[in-house]
């Protein structure tokens, strides 16, 4: 069964350092999502791509976070500089695209970030 791949699974970094996460969606899924999940809370959307274009980044802290999906396939989420409050699980998901609103999202295993 096809899965969303993410790396690394765990990342420990010091405050003010740069960190990057990678995601490879399920083949054929044009829509890709990055979520942040703080311990004890539900995932919150950071950014959503349709192919290589950003369609929603309203919750992305743009002063320190950036995301790209240059060829419309895999994606990278970067934080620079990292802050203590960025410690969380970062989840990538993908889905089919179209007028049908019922497409479910498939999630990767996530990257657990700890900022010290």
């Amino acid at each position, binding site marked *: 069964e096809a899965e*969303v791949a*993410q790396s690394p699974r765990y990342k420990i970094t010091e405050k003010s350092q740069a960190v990057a996460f990678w995601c490879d969606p399920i083949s054929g899924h044009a*829509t890709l999502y990055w979520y942040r999940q703080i311990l*004890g*809370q*539900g*995932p*919150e*959307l950071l950014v*959503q791509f*349709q192919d290589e274009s950003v*369609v*929603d980044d309203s919750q992305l802290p743009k002063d320190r976070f950036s995301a790209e999906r240059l060829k419309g396939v895999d994606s990278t989420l970067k934080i620079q500089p990292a802050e203590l409050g960025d410690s969380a699980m970062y*989840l990538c*998901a993908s*889905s089919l*695209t179209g007028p049908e*609103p*019922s*497409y*479910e*999202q*498939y*999630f*990767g*295993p*996530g990257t*657990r970030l700890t900022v010290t």
Partner: protein
Amino acid sequence: AQSVAQPEDQVNVAEGNPLTVKCTYSVSGNPYLFWYVQYPNRGLQFLLKYITGDNLVKGSYGFEAEFNKSQTSFHLKKPSALVSDSALYFCAVRDRKSFQKLVFGTGTRLLVSP
């Protein structure tokens, strides 16, 4: 804005007993509702969804959910709980104003005791 509420932080049930995890929603228009499960240090796994049609939706691993429009609820149920069902469960609603965006509840931890 569209939202879901999960009123219970934790649900405890004995193995073999029926379980219910509650979810209520607030949307404008017809809701698109989803349940996901999360095991420790893992991503979310899709369980089931309600888009339209029959109010009782069947999903993976023997789970089902009942959509109730008058009570704006979408409770997750299983007739007979297993210890392996112990996990974190999230209800979510699709935001119709934002392209396929999912808005999640805060989650309910299910603990099934042997």
